[in-house]
């Protein structure tokens, strides 16, 4: 297996964007290519993740991106895996570079949905659930995670204020991120007084609907060394699955696919959860960050809430969780998020994270899933 590296990364701002889906996809791709200091002609293939291109009248984005980069003859793959599309796409790219099929590839994720409005974005997203049992019966994504939250609060005697602390922390971090969608500090009272979306989750427990695109360049180590000193290594990659519907799980307060993916990634990397300096985890809702940080092995089951209370997961705490602001504050353009997490790790480990730098960080982890964790990918990175 070839050693795989990330040598460049780029992102548009996340938020409500005016440009078209293809414009932002190309923009992030160009930024990543320039950050890597390579020529488009050196790229062997493109992996483009997106979920609702149909809402902006462009699916099959791969060839559009490659054509705009002047490499229309190069193969591309357009990938959908709900909110986990970006990391799944990254994994396919990783496997192809590791397997020696390609020397260097482009991985770009994108979403453009905010123009469809609250009702329709809520509706489209519900198509990512096991629709027959969930979306069809009126379950929105906030609703599915709210069901997880109610189960967690009941089982572990946690409170809605505990969940609110996750939002406050992530907004603190996102405030330091120029590309974040919701760049403002908030208080526990702000969260508690915000409108209920799906009880017990309120507006500030939810990530926003965002537009945005993120891109990275992946290559083998020989290619990396020929081009730059500023690169990072991918040392672990794991994937897993869970029953598509929540009703198919005996425990609703844990996500099986996260555990399976994490175990595989830790094994490949030869490290333990305690060796991770910072993690970008899938906090689509405050409850998700709590469940994720337990499933990833950072805290025992039922103990993540206490860790948040004690500030262990803050920027430069015991383990910095979501230094970028996470999906909650940085935003969640669903097809882009998994790639955006890698952009953050690249920036952190190559000294480009500015005010939100995790001090002395060497090992970063990304965790991104689709729907209620029905599909998941975990990646581990190390500075060189």
């Amino acid at each position, binding site marked *: 297996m070839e050693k795989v590296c990330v040598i460049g990364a780029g992102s548009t701002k996340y938020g409500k964007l005016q440009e078209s889906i293809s414009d932002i996809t190309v923009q992030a791709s160009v930024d990543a290519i320039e950050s890597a200091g390579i020529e488009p002609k050196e790229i062997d293939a493109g992996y483009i993740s997106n979920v609702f291109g149909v809402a902006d009248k462009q699916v099959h984005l791969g060839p559009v991106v490659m054509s705009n980069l002047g490499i229309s003859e190069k193969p591309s793959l357009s990938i959908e895996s709900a909110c986990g599309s970006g990391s799944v796409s990254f994994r396919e790219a990783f496997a192809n570079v590791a397997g020696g099929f390609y020397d260097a590839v482009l991985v770009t994720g994108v979403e453009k949905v905010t123009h469809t409005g609250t009702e329709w974005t809520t509706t489209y997203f519900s198509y990512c659930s096991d629709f027959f049992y969930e979306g069809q019966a009126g379950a929105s994504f906030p609703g599915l995670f709210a069901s997880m939250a109610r189960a967690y609060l009941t089982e572990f005697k946690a409170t809605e204020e505990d969940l609110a602390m996750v939002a406050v922390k992530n907004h603190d971090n996102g405030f330091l991120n120029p590309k974040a969608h919701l760049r403002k500090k908030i208080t526990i009272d702000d969260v508690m007084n915000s409108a209920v979306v*799906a009880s017990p989750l309120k507006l500030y427990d939810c990530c926003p609907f965002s537009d945005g695109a993120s891109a990275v360049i992946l290559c083998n180590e020989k290619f990396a060394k020929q081009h730059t000193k500023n690169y990072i290594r991918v040392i672990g990659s794991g994937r897993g699955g869970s029953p598509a519907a929540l009703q198919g799980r005996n425990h609703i307060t844990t996500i099986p696919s996260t555990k399976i993916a994490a175990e595989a990634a830790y094994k490949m990397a030869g490290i333990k959860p305690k060796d991770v300096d910072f993690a970008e985890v899938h906090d689509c809702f405050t409850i998700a960050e709590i469940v994720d940080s337990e499933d990833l092995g950072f805290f025992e089951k039922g103990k993540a809430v206490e860790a948040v209370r004690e500030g262990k997961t803050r920027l430069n705490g015991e383990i910095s969780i979501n230094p970028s602001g996470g999906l909650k504050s940085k935003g969640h353009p669903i097809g882009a998020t998994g790639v955006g997490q890698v952009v953050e790790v690249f920036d952190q480990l190559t000294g480009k994270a500015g005010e939100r730098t995790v001090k002395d960080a060497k090992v970063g982890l990304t965790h991104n899933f689709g729907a209620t964790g029905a599909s998941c990918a975990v990646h581990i990175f190390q500075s060189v």
Partner: protein
Amino acid sequence: MYKLSAKQQFIECAKLGKILARKCKNCAELHLATVYFCQKCGHKEFENVELEGKGTVVTYTIITVPPAGFEKYTPYAWVVVQLGSNLRISGFMANIAKPADLPIGSKAKIVDFDERGIILEKQ
């Protein structure tokens, strides 16, 4: 052979307040009728079992920002129910406005299936 009618049979049963389940002929694991291979052992022969669509509320949410088509029912609950057996089912429940209306552990039953999927009622 893939039986196209399995989902339809499941729906007809739900309309009568029952859950059509499949019991694995090899390991006895229960699945919803829409499954074709046993998750536990991989076997593909099942015996149909009709279960009473009754059980206890495991968790739920009350939705106030609904997807299209659900404005007229808002607020409503989406509920996960533990059936007597080792099987869970979820669905739509009308007329739930606040958590006090539906404590966890409440009894619930399937009463219908329509364009909102499985319809549950508190007992």
